[in-house]
């Protein structure tokens, strides 16, 4: 099992466009729904793109807004103005 990275977000209105973007931008990601939250797993690398989320909500989305809905994560994180990346070995 090569390192799975994962992000857990609240399952609410604010997080939904973020969840949708992640699933769209990471074709091998897999969403596990539980009451109140969703855990998204992906082999090796997972990216959250500000551009994708912004397009869905019709305004500029700052990657730091993730702080409002994130529940947990697995992997090493890197963040800049355009994206958040979770991976192993970084």
């Amino acid at each position, binding site marked *: *099992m090569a390192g*799975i990275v994962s992000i857990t977000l609240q399952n609410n209105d604010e997080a939904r466009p973020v969840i949708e973007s992640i699933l769209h931008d990471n074709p091998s990601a897999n969403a596990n729904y539980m009451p109140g939250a969703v*855990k998204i797993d992906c082999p090796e690398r997972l990216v959250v793109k500000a551009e994708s989320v912004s*397009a869905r909500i019709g305004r500029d989305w700052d990657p*730091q807004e993730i702080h409002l809905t994130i529940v947990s*994560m697995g992997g090493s994180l890197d963040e800049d*103005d355009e994206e958040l990346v979770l991976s*192993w070995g970084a």
Partner: protein
Amino acid sequence: MTPPRKKKLNLKKRYELMTRGLDWETSYQKMDDVFPYDTFEGIKITDWSKWEDPFRLTMDAYWKYQGEKERKLYAVLDSFAQNNGQLGISDARYVNAIKLFLTGVTPLEYQAHRHFAHLGRHIRGVGPRVAAQMQSLDELRHAQTQIHTISHYNKYFDGFAEFPHMHDRVWYLSVPKSFFDDACSAGPFEFFTAISFAFEYVLTNLLFVPFMSGAAYNGDLATVTFGFSAQSDEARHMTLGIEVIKFMLEQHPDNLPIVQQWVDKWFWRGHKMLGLVAMMMDYMLPKRIMSWKEAWEIYFTEAGGALFEDLSRYGLRVPKYADIATDEAEHISHQNWSIFYQYTQAAGFHTWLPSDEEMAWLSEKYPNTFDKYYRPRFEMWREMEARGERFYNNALPQLCQTCQIPMGYTEPGDPTRIGFRSTEYAGERYHFCSDGCKDIFENEPEKFSQAWLPVHQIFQGNCGGAELSDVLEWYHMKNGTDNMDYTGSPDQKQWDAWQSVRKRVAG
């Protein structure tokens, strides 16, 4: 088409300016005098500037996001109180899980606040120092929001009122308390390894994620809200944990054996403490989302597996006794609930035996162990109850010198035999529940031989007196109200009265 995203001052630049750019090397005083605590543990740091900050959160952004979290949280709490949200929970038995949470976990949030404030002053590197300052504020917020949330339950249910007092005195609450006391009385790097890495990165998912999801499933909107609000800070705390570990391992090869010993110690201590959560998930939630064993597989075996595989490039190995802990995931919740059932007279929440339906769920989730080892015990206790001979254990238990849990755990590989270990130190014999706890003692006997063990203290006459009623009074537990079985409790009477009114209204 959405307009192109606005360009701002690059995040990395801004972070550089607002953290590292504000730091300086002291010149009137020696740096070692200004930061006296970050060398004595033997961790060698050659270059603090190599520290990586994964979430480049500056103080101004921190205030903005935290303010927004608080606004949302208190709006929900207010409407929960306004609309009598306590009536919407699945069953009043559920509230007992929250009693254990408030008395056991909330004071730890406050301890974390205090100790991160200490680190926010005393860590030489500015990156982790700022992260510790933010975390100190987060943890204070967690303590406050939990107290606010639960103050609503305190109006309607027993067992909440004396939580800070109880945390310092009650026998099973000494388990989480001693865990944190141990961390806070260690040096800064051990504290980071204990709390930020072993607890928050490796194990906290097991506490918060299934528990908050369980709260959602049981209609407890208030707990879900504070839980997820607190948890949204946790991703930041987790990255601090993993960065500290990588940083120590990258800075100097001599750090590896020290870090490995801490990782082994704190994994084992965390595993034992989380046995309380295992019991909440398998026995105390009227509606269950996943078993402890399933949560362990997802969050330790799978997520922890990927983590330790990644860290193996530094020579760090999977914590010692991880295999035994995984084996115990099949037993720990059943054994812990059995302990509380036997000592219900001294518990600050109510207990009960699992119903037929609940036992069927436990059989399904624990095919290797439940029917074989635990169902017969619960069925026997049920028969005894029916005969009017409910079983109470009136002997005070032997406690493990390290984890402080009554020694009710079984031998690895043999669930029919209680495990005992002991060792001698300075002419006294000390007892342990497991090899993991014995190893921890033997590495730091001066520290652990001083442990404040609730049962020893009762025998020494330091807990109000020799009778159960004396000790309960000293705990501030109301006999016949806060303790004993759910059936027949004032909580149950109140709940049943509410339910019958609702049925009448519904016609």
